């Protein structure tokens, strides 16, 4: 951070303030974007450490390292921190940095709110992480916090968990409003909606999803709060409520949420693949419509998480077919990416490697999703490691690889220096191998019947679990290499040109590298 500050310090009139107040009081979209990204990576390491505890315990059958109570806290906190602390803030950080640069705007539309929405996040996660040290321990009911496990049987710290969710919800909503206002009001003259870069499009749609579902999440945790502390019976059968209602309301939020975590990655990949294929993105308009279709369908499929809970046959059929329908727009996107690469002049720098791995591995995750969507088959897969394999295949090589690809793609623009390509490729290959070793065997474990969220397992699962743990340690350790690469790139390295990738297109490459503290004070003309 200090190196970034130092680069601009000589520019006294327009440069950033000095010292800590620069970061506390900044309204600059680049500063706030950097803070989001640093925060996200910190949370990624914290959530990753918890994953390491989980995999260490599962290295062998039996209880070796942690007690089941603590193991449950680890799975819960790992999920919550990765979803709300690592993936979502990373995309908000990318949006802060890149959306104004891509649409030719001087800053976000609501810069003061931007500052506030960032600084709420450390507060929320301080509260959430502090529950680990409270009496009774941290939340231990899984990141989906099903009632009555989280209401009647939850630990005393559940109330802190609820407030943390409220605060991060407010933060996400403000971030989303900011993106919508920026995209709708601050585009450079001549940039019509259908000329917007894909990353801006995907983020606009993501922002609408956030506005639609984060309040529902706030609603469901508020109901929990009232059940726990004020004697209501929303989810309590003894008082006339229904625990199944919780799952409906939660998954009404939860399914759009998984698209919130993947759509911005779709957008970034739609810049990276054309840049390194030296071709225009194939089927721009169909890409935009596909993202819109995925977002709309995401509201109609929530009960596919609940087939085993008891859904009437008509409902199972509806939710099964609606879910399978999502494969159509997703397929459009995958085929368009492949068609973009087809007969292109491909080079394989780190962003492109991550992008290609994204396309292949996300598709594998999508296919296991189709298997899970088939209602009669889901009864076998439900709550097994097959589900764990599925969502890690869409989130790790989907969301996380998408973020890595974006980081390498735009690091030269952010820092003014090229990252170390050899180290970055090493980071890619170790991540790729580690990730597949960690998560592929989980498919087999799940099909063989190993349930998720257990600290101990039957002996026949031992070999695959050991392989999985080795892969997880490898993937986890590799991420420290990413930290090294980024620090090295911030500190120095080969100077980056304004457009370091010869196939890249977009307004962000028209400003110098590193991007000056203030850009596009006069809007560029888009033809």
């Amino acid at each position, binding site marked *: 951070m200090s190196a970034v500050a130092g680069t601009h310090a000589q520019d006294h009139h327009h440069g950033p303030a000095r010292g800590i107040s620069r970061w506390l009081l900044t309204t600059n979209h680049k500063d706030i974007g950097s803070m989001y990204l640093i925060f996200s990576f910190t949370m990624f390491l914290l959530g990753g450490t918890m994953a390491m505890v989980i995999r260490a315990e599962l290295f062998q059958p039996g209880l070796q390292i942690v007690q089941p109570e603590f193991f449950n806290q680890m799975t819960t906190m790992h999920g919550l921190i990765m979803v709300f602390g690592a993936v979502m803030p990373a995309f908000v950080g990318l949006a802060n940095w890149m959306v104004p640069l891509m649409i030719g705007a001087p800053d976000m539309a609501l810069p003061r709110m931007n500052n506030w929405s960032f600084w709420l996040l450390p507060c929320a996660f301080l509260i959430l992480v502090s529950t680990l040290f409270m009496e009774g321990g941290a939340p231990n009911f899984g990141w989906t916090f099903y009632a009555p496990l989280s209401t009647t049987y939850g630990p005393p710290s559940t109330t802190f968990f609820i407030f943390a969710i409220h605060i991060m919800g407010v933060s996400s909503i403000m971030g989303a409003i900011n993106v919508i206002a920026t995209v709708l009001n601050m585009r450079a003259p001549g940039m019509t909606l259908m000329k917007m870069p894909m990353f801006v499009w995907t983020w606009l749609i993501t922002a609408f999803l956030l*506005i639609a579902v984060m309040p529902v999440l706030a609603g469901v945790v508020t109901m929990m709060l009232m059940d726990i502390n004020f004697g209501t019976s929303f989810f309590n059968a003894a008082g006339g409520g229904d625990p199944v209602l919780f799952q409906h309301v939660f998954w009404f939020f939860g399914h759009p949420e998984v698209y919130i975590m993947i759509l911005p990655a779709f957008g970034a990949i739609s810049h990276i693949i054309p840049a390194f294929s030296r071709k225009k993105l194939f089927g721009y308009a169909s890409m935009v419509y596909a993202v819109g279709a995925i977002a709309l369908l995401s509201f109609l499929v929530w009960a596919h998480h609940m087939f085993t809970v008891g859904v*009437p046959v008509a409902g199972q059929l509806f939710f099964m077919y609606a879910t399978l329908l999502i494969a159509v727009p997703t397929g459009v996107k995958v085929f368009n990416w492949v068609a973009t690469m087809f007969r292109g002049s491909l080079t394989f720098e780190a962003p492109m490697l991550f992008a290609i791995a994204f396309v292949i591995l996300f598709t594998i995750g999508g296919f296991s999703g189709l298997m899970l969507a088939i209602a009669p088959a889901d009864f076998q897969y439900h709550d097994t490691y097959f589900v764990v394999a599925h969502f890690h295949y869409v989130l790790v090589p989907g969301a996380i690889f998408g973020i890595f690809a974006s980081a390498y793609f735009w690091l030269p623009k952010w820092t003014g220096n090229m990252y170390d390509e050899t180290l970055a490729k090493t980071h890619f290959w170790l991540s790729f191998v580690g990730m597949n070793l960690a998560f592929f065997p989980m498919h087999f474990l799940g099909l063989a019947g190993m349930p998720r969220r257990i600290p101990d397992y039957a002996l026949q699962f031992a070999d695959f679990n050991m392989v999985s743990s080795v892969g997880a340690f490898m993937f986890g350790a590799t991420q420290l290499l990413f930290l090294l690469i980024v620090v090295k790139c911030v500190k120095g390295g080969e100077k980056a040109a304004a457009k370091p990738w010869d196939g890249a297109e977009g307004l962000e490459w028209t400003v110098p590298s590193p991007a000056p503290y203030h850009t596009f004070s006069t809007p560029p003309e888009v033809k």
Partner: protein
Amino acid sequence: MAEQQANKPTPQRSNTRVIGWCVASVVGMFAFGFAMVPLYDVFCDITGINGKTSGRYESTERTAADMTRTIKVQFLAQNGPDMPWVFRPVERSVEVHPGEATTVNFYAENPTDKDMVGQAVPSLSPSEGTLYFHKTECFCFNQQPLSAGENTHMPLVFIVDQDLPSHITKLTLSYTLYDQGEPQTAVTSTTNTTITDNG
């Protein structure tokens, strides 16, 4: 600001409008989350899909029982968490004809040394039959107070509808009995009305 651009709205005014719409959507979706609670109840009431049987049945017409069909109705009784009462059906199952009113009893006993109030919550399986199972009298319509050591037989009067789909030959009615605390607190309980509504 107005002199900058005469025709187009200023960025500030556009931002205010966007924020207004977004905040309205956020408030609306928060309300929608809560609206899902009554919507869910109404939806389940109409379709009967979660096995929640409806409240007191008042038949408008008396039709003769359909003696050609026999439906086996089974009864289950279980206790909610930390409920110390003895609770079981007197008859495990009865065979009835659709249209005829049948009375069965459930036995409840409070073995503790303090006065308590219980509340039974019903669930019917298969849920497809829920709409065709009518209760004209049920102990589950009200809370049941039992003083220390007391026992009672609690009646249930039900009619299986003649329109019950022909492939259903067996219905299982399950009651879960929940501890509602001591008599005084139970009377003032706000949840009481909700329970009576749902049956």
